[in-house]
């Protein structure tokens, strides 16, 4: 009971607290804020207690426990850092246990770095350096060095401190213990002064890369890398050390060595280095490339991944070495053999295809001399071939990535690597396959596809994964084709693809569009056969709704834009279809075809350019808004404005968002006026008829839409929207109080909170308050007690007297919207599933101008009006090229009990804009539909007994 009382008292207290705060803030800019400063609990007493325990500790176990507890305290809980450090160091000098002393050092470092004060840093560094000189235990010395290096780094490279620390670490680089030496190396790497001249320290570190202990070698290499990262130019002599590290027995050393070789090659690519076992020289970058390629055959996966990754950034490598990476001499029984890729290539070059029988086709050719064959891979030979065949997907994807990276810079290499990338479509891991598709589209523009390669690539169109197929469509749209036959093959296969996977329609259209635009000359000879144009007979007109025919049309139309002669080949039907397509698929068809320019101009009465038309429309919009803003504009005039705006939104896609915004706003204006003009409203006390409540609900939805669906609002427009919303809340509050249907407490609080927030925001932003808000603030100020009823009495006359201010709209807006491609409206053939179980309906849609995808939900409404919200997975959203646009591909799960016959579920995409903690609206009311719902017929059927 006591607990409940206490709780209540607390609630009371905090409640009145907020109200006073409100009063003050509502009073104007001179806000006095009551701030509750939380008292930190028992400052430093805890730390003090632990310290005392530590000092009294008899066993090392106790000390360690105390130290651990100290380390867990937050920095704020330790006040006198200097004093604590001093006491800790006393413990350090007294205790003999290595573990305790290490822990002390760690803690000192932690405390000092958390405090972050220069003075502490310097003094602690001094003390630790002194300790280091006396220290005999190697692990303590190591810990000490690492603490020092942290402190040195924290000091931000202060020269004097760094120099002292470096001087302390330098002789320890040759310490017998790896702990000391490795940490000394790390410290040198972090704190050595960055000077343009190579120093002795570099030589020393170079020597340490040959140290006895692998950990020291690794640390020395890492230190060199750190130095490079800090901008120090590492000299040439280190290259030999780095290369030697590649042959180390330990993988961490090899890995660090690889990175160092890479870094050196990147800094001085053109330097010449002598070739091993000969008197020739090669460019440093080529030599390094060879070394890194060798590491692709390393024993350790980590090293292989590293090598494969590094290769991609070695863009300066010469073509000769690069092309070797794809080269693998094959032989069978001592006879030279050609690889599958080579065989295909020669077939095409010869101009004939193999006939049927392939056995023996790969029969080995000439005899090889035993001494000409080299089995040891030297240099770059076949590095990528091995990398792509590796057991581990990490290596394979890294190799693929690097190969693509290099291919985008070397066109010839791109052509060579194509075969290998296509091979990767067959990888067992889907991730790698997708990456291969990506790679292909990245190098798409660089290559001209040969017929045999095309054949291989097109075979992949059969693949089930839609990502792979779409990637391939993108790539085919980008790449260049060699001849008409290739194009024909391509068209055939793509149409087959369409037949097999109709859902690829849009991606295929885009592909055909780009393919047509890129190859006008290749399309020209194919036009008659593609469009079935016969010289003598008139063939039936094709169905312009047929997606396959649209594909062909897109190909031809886009090609025709670049080839004037093509127009003569087309018949009237085709030309009409073009006009149709221009309207239905505006983005995919050229604005005008060469021959049609005159005709189109004649057809359109106003000889206006598109730009002029746009200006016209914008002007019209403004004129409508001016009309609506006229002081005497009555209800009828506003209605007319709304109609104009709605029509404008339909006609002009560019202005659609603005027109809809304006229309919605005017709608709000109208509704608001309608409510306040109602007789029952004016009558005052009693609750109005239900229609007022309905209007209020509609207003709620409309204002939410204005607030959340449109983006790109200017500050004053935003303010108008928010104040409209506040007005709506006021309206609802009044209705609620008058209705006496339930407690208005929650709504009242919400309203107050909103009013206060908005007012503060507007004042901060320097925006003027509109008349309603102004009056509202003043009215509230005058109130003694902010009860809902009292507020309602203040608000009601304000709502009636002050009309909604007219809209001024200047900024170009965007409107969040969604287009559902899949599932399509389907009410004829219901999808059947067993009742009580789940049916997955694949959903494919595009979201535009959605700033926050985490708000997107899928709404499924069943015929019994029950609705479910489905939260799509974050990974199902794929960003599109435009900003804030996404492709959402996911599965909507539908389930229901038995129905006697089929029914329709409605699927739609909505935004859930629920404000956390607000209990005023129902869950349903927070949803903003982004598109019309799609109806899908489903039929849950009873479980058949004999099945189970």
């Amino acid at each position: 009971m006591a607990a409940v009382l206490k709780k209540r008292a607390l609630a009371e207290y905090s409640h009145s607290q907020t109200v006073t705060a409100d009063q003050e803030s509502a009073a104007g800019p001179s806000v006095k804020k009551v701030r509750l400063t939380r008292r930190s609990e028992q400052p430093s007493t805890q730390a003090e207690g632990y310290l005392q325990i530590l000092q009294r500790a008899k066993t090392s176990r106790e000390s360690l426990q105390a130290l651990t507890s100290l380390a867990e305290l937050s920095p704020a809980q330790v006040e006198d850092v200097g004093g604590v450090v001093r006491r800790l160091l006393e413990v350090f000098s007294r205790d003999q246990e290595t573990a305790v002393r290490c822990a002390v050092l760690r803690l000192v470092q932690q405390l000092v770095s958390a405090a972050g004060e220069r003075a502490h840093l310097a003094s602690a560094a001094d003390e630790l350096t002194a300790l280091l000189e006396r220290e005999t235990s190697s692990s303590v010395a190591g810990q000490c060095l690492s603490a020092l290096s942290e402190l040195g780094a924290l000091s931000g490279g202060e020269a004097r401190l760094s120099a002292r620390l470096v001087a302390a670490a330098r002789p320890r680089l040759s310490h017998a213990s790896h702990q000391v030496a490795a940490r000394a190396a790390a410290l040198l790497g972090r704190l050595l002064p960055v000077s343009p001249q190579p120093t002795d320290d570099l030589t020393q570190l170079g020597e340490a890369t040959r140290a006895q202990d692998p950990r020291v070698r690794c640390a020395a290499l890492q230190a060199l890398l750190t130095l490079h990262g800090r901008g120090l130019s590492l000299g040439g002599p280190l290259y030999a050390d780095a290369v030697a590290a590649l042959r180390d027995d330990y993988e961490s050393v090899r890995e660090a060595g690889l990175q160092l070789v890479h870094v050196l090659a990147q800094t001085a690519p053109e330097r010449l280095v002598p070739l091993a076992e000969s008197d020739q020289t090669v460019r440093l970058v080529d030599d390094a490339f060879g070394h890194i390629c060798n590491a692709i055959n390393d024993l350790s996966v980590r090293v292989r991944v590293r090598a494969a990754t590094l290769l991609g950034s070695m863009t300066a490598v010469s073509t000769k070495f690069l092309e070797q990476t794809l080269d693998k001499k094959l032989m069978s029984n001592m006879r030279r053999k050609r690889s599958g890729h080579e065989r295909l290539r020669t077939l095409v070059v010869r101009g004939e295809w193999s006939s049927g029988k392939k056995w023996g086709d790969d029969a080995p050719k000439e005899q090889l001399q035993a001494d000409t064959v080299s089995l040891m891979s030297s240099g770059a030979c076949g590095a990528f071939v091995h990398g792509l065949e590796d057991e581990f997907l990490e290596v394979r994807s890294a190799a693929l990535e690097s190969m693509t990276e290099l291919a985008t810079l070397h066109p010839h290499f791109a052509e060579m690597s194509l075969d290998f990338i296509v091979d990767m479509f067959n990888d067992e891991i889907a991730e790698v396959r997708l990456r291969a598709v990506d790679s292909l589209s990245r190098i798409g523009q660089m290559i001209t596809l040969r017929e045999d390669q095309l054949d291989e690539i097109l075979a992949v169109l059969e693949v089930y994964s839609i990502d792979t197929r779409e990637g391939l469509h993108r790539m085919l749209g980008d790449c260049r084709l060699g001849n008409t036959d290739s194009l024909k093959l391509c068209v055939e296969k793509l149409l087959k693809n369409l037949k097999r996977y109709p859902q690829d329609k849009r991606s295929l259209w885009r592909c055909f569009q780009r393919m047509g635009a890129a190859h006008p000359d290749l399309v020209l000879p194919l036009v008659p056969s593609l469009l079935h144009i016969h010289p003598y007979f008139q063939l039936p007109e094709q169905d312009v709704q047929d997606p396959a025919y649209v594909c062909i049309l897109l190909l031809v139309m886009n090609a025709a834009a670049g080839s004037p002669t093509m127009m003569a080949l087309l018949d009237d039907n085709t030309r009409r279809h073009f006009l149709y397509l221009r309207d239905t698929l505006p983005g995919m068809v050229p604005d005008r075809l060469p021959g049609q320019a005159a005709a189109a101009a004649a057809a359109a009465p106003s000889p206006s350019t598109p730009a002029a038309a746009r200006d016209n429309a914008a002007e019209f919009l403004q004129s409508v808004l001016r009309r609506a803003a006229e002081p005497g504009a009555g209800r009828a005039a506003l209605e007319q404005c709304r109609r104009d705006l709605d029509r404008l939104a339909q006609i002009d896609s560019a202005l659609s968002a603005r027109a809809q915004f304006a229309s919605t706003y005017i709608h709000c204006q109208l509704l608001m006026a309608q409510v306040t003009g109602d007789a029952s409203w004016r009558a005052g006390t009693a609750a109005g008829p239900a229609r007022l409540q309905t209007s209020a609900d509609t207003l709620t939805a409309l204002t939410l839409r204005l607030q959340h669906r449109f983006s790109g609002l200017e500050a004053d427009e935003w303010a108008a929207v928010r104040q409209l919303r506040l007005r709506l809340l006021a309206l609802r509050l009044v209705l609620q109080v008058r209705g006496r249907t339930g407690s208005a407490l929650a709504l009242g609080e919400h309203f107050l909170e909103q009013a206060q927030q908005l007012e503060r925001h507007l004042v901060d932003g320097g925006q003027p308050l509109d008349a309603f808000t102004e009056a509202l603030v003043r009215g509230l100020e005058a109130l003694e007690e902010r009860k809902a009823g009292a507020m309602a009495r203040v608000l009601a006359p304000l709502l009636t007297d002050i009309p909604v201010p007219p809209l001024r709209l200047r900024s170009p807006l965007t409107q969040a919207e969604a287009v559902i491609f899949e599932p399509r409206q389907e009410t004829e053939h219901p999808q059947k599933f067993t009742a009580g179980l789940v049916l997955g309906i694949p959903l494919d849609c595009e979201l535009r101008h959605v700033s926050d995808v985490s708000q997107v939900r899928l709404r499924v409404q069943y015929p019994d009006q029950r609705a479910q919200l489905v939260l799509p997975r974050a990974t199902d959203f794929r960003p599109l090229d435009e900003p804030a646009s996404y492709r959402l591909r996911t599965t909507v799960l539908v389930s229901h009990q038995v129905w006697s016959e089929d029914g329709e579920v409605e699927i739609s995409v909505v935004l859930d804009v629920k404000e956390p903690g607000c209990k005023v609206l129902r869950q349903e009311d927070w949803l903003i539909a982004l598109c019309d719902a799609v109806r899908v017929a489903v039929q849950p059927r009873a479980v058949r007994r004999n099945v189970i």
Partner: protein
Amino acid sequence: MPEIKVTPLGAGQDVGRSCILVSIGGKNIMLDCGMHMGHNDERRFPDFSYIADGSLTEHLDCVIISHFHLDHCGALPFMTEMVGYSGPIYMTYPTKAIAPILLEDMRKVAVERKGESSTSFFTSQMVKECMKKVTAVNLHQTVQVDSEIEIKAYYAGHVLGAAMFHVRVGDQSVVYTGDYNMTPDRHLGAAWIDKCCPDLLITESTYATTIRDSKRCRERDILKKVHECVERGGKVLIPVFALGRAQELCILLESYWERTNLKVPVYFSLGLTEKANNYYKMFITWTNQKIKKTFVERNMFEFKHIKPFDKSYMENPGPMVVFASPGMLHAGLSLNIFKRWAPDEKNMLIMPGYCVVGTVGHKVLNGAKKVEFENPRTVVDVRMAVEYMSFSAHADAKGIMQLIQYCQPKNVMLVHGDAEKMVFLKSKIQQELSLDCFNPANGETCTIVTKPTIAADVSLSLLKRDLQPVAEIGDLRVKRRKLLHGVLMVKGNKVRVLDSDAACAELGVTRHEIRFTSTVTLEDPGPVSRTIDKLHTHLQKRLGITQHLGDGPINIGSVLLQVSGSDQEDLKEAIVSWTYQDDALGSYILNSIKNIDR
């Protein structure tokens, strides 16, 4: 000198009947115990009488089996049950599980089909008894066979459970690879071994003269062909051996079917495969990354698209793909299906492996358009497309070289390959890796001499004195050989390195001191003490560490310098004396004094 003796009883310059005897550090170890599939007489088993007549147990210390293929384990029941061996046998867990299935199958075929007398062949009971004697080992698990022999298995990737074995006796060691594969495939990873630097690496060399194309290219090829064939309504027949490659092909087709959403049925003729497949499902740790990663969701060996085959399906219309054994089309189901489907040109035959001369498979692969059958006497027209595809899981020449590089052995021996191919690889190993390479024939003994290592005890103080890095001499910490100054003492079978003083003390010998003394005549008028001072400052300048007390001699380390003569004489005699340890210093001082006036 210690040596390792190796005698192949099978697989020496040959493929089949792998059986290699190794004598190492006084222990005899048998690596693999296989049978030859090409022979039906006594040549099919290794000649165990070479080892000993009667019981082998006292002559052999252990037997190691690398994997379950019959040419590596086929003679095991014969050896243990009929010849008599009851010592330890080692193999990996999957091998122990699958080998008896294959042995039993082989026994059935030999006894029931070929009508061999059951007295000369082992019985099912014998297979069971034999497997009871086997100890199973895990990857990278070090097993102590007896107090001296230590074996360790590494992943070989040839078939499920295939392993390479590292055998160590004392300080000598041998690695036996068995069969291995360096390129990973759809269900197995690549062979892996650490840098264990054995004295001898015994490696297979099946593809000694081949460098293969990338496997992706091959896979893509075969999948495209199959797809085209079923798309035009044809039937595809793939004759396979029951284990190993069959699973590989199944996974390949299964994942392709999955990927392209094909609905054409794929069948697999049952038999011993079903039992073996269960083991494949169980030994997930022995497969590759993909299967290991995904088996929690779905075990890749639980095929979704591949269903068991029934003989009646043969007549079904429409496209289908059928895996049927045996692999060379010499008998059984695969031959029956072939007879039925061969005349239709829409159909296709894919041979995933080599075929022995004389089998139908071999004829068809060589382009025979008509195949005659006896009993009943018929002629079948071959109109179906015939494809060959190599899907063998052996390392190619590059792979072998790579393994040698990974392993870093001191000697290499080639087995399990054709003699003339070995010659090539042997020359390459000698040229490019500069290692000694052997390729003994069956029954030929190779002797590999190893460098003995002799362990000696050194006292810690001596080690510390000589190996502790000295700050002044900067490069001592660099990894390189170091000289240790001491005396080697051999007492009984104990070898020790001692400090020379300690050695003297222990032996009760007083040390002789050898000093060199030389006299230099200096022309320097004036008192002797001045000459001494002059010399002192001179040396002080050069060496910086001289010691001089009053009139006495100048000490520089063990070097003594004394000046004799009287104050009046112009010529003074400087006597320099040094021990032989400080020869360099002494000579330097002597020279420096001689040239003092220059």
